[in-house]
């Protein structure tokens, strides 16, 4: 029910006083209310829930998280190599 799907704002406009936008979900375009993200620009990614954008996704934070996983991966590979005596 709290399903939120990331989508990219491709157009902004106004209907009956509401800030609205067209949002692209990997090829499927849906109309979305942008009133809760007044600072959002075309090109921003948002989490969309029941036709409303709830935030602007933070690319910097996303990169940092993915970097963390990458480091974890590298560390684990180093440990694995260290555990194989033939490669020492």
């Amino acid at each position: 029910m709290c399903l939120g799907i990331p989508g990219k704002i491709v157009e902004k406009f106004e209907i009956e006083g509401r800030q609205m936008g067209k949002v692209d979900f990997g090829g499927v375009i849906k109309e979305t209310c942008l009133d809760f993200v007044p600072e959002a620009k075309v090109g921003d990614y948002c989490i969309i829930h029941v036709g409303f954008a709830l935030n602007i996704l933070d690319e910097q934070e996303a990169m940092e998280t993915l970097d963390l996983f990458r480091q974890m991966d590298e560390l684990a590979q180093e440990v694995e190599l260290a555990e194989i005596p033939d490669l020492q």
Partner: protein
Amino acid sequence: MKYVDEYRDESAVRRVLDDIRLSIKGSWTIMEICGGQTHNLVRFGIDEMLPKEIELVHGPGCPVCVTPLELIDKAIALAARPDVIFTSYGDMLRVPGSREDLFAVKARGGQVRIVYSPLDAVKLAKENPNKTVVFFAIGFETTAPANAMAVVQARQLGLKNFAVLVSHVTVPPAITAILSSPASRVRGFLAAGHVCTVMGYWEYEPLAEQFGVPIVVTGFEPLDLAEGIRQCLLQLEAGKHQVVNAYARSVRREGNRAAQDIIRRVFEPCDRAWRGIGLIPMSGYRLRDEFGDMDAEGRFPEVQAIAVQENPVCISGLVLQGLKKPHECPAFGKECTPQHPLGATMVSSEGACAAYFKYRALG
């Protein structure tokens, strides 16, 4: 799809789970609050890939599951009125009331419409001035701003034929209720990422302190879920109980202020009964007096008297509090299936019983 595919990388998920196996020594029980997370944990088999000492129990964060049976009956009574167009998110239509569901009303010619956005319900009201459009406003804090916006929009358009049947619930009082139960085995929580996207996570800091439990704000993709579990377990092993944000691309501590403002403008906190659990003090929202004329129960007072009894065999209340697992119920997969659910947690695809039935072939 950006922000999805990279969090479904199977080798990265395995790496996080490997790290859990290497670094976690104790036996711990943690609860994911959100039904969407329950669904994905079971769907991707993450719970089964954890060491056997780690148990995930499934929380009450499924609004379809916890909406009281009598409210379903009220919805059905409203939908059956010839002067009403009843609108709802799709998941509510097949929830059985005490005698039938909303689909049955629709099949008999009742005007029941599924809406994607609550603003679609307002639009229907504008297009159908001779009918009253009732919107079934259910959900947690994630959905509350959208539903509140529909109320504001109807007021701004001067629509007199729009009303809402409100069954809103909130997460922090449910965590308090679960942890206050002497039978609770839950030592840590995964907080629901989209609830926190709206509300932030500052509300959870006093709970972590008071009950001495770590709470990790967690997303929905497999890598998010594995990392949320890892962060929670690392804290448990270290004897810590902090609120940690493992879904930082979406969640900020203060949440979304504009969304919170509209919730506060339209709704106020109230006591609410949760299906399968019972009354939890100040755990819901109701319309403020200023918008009281849009309350469907006030508009059609005959539905206020509707009261019903749950099926006594069903243990969904214990499942929703993390005290029992779905397959521990004698009715699971026998009298109770997604086609013929006895209780709340078999009803929605996000209910723990439905997820076990679908992905575990335990039926």
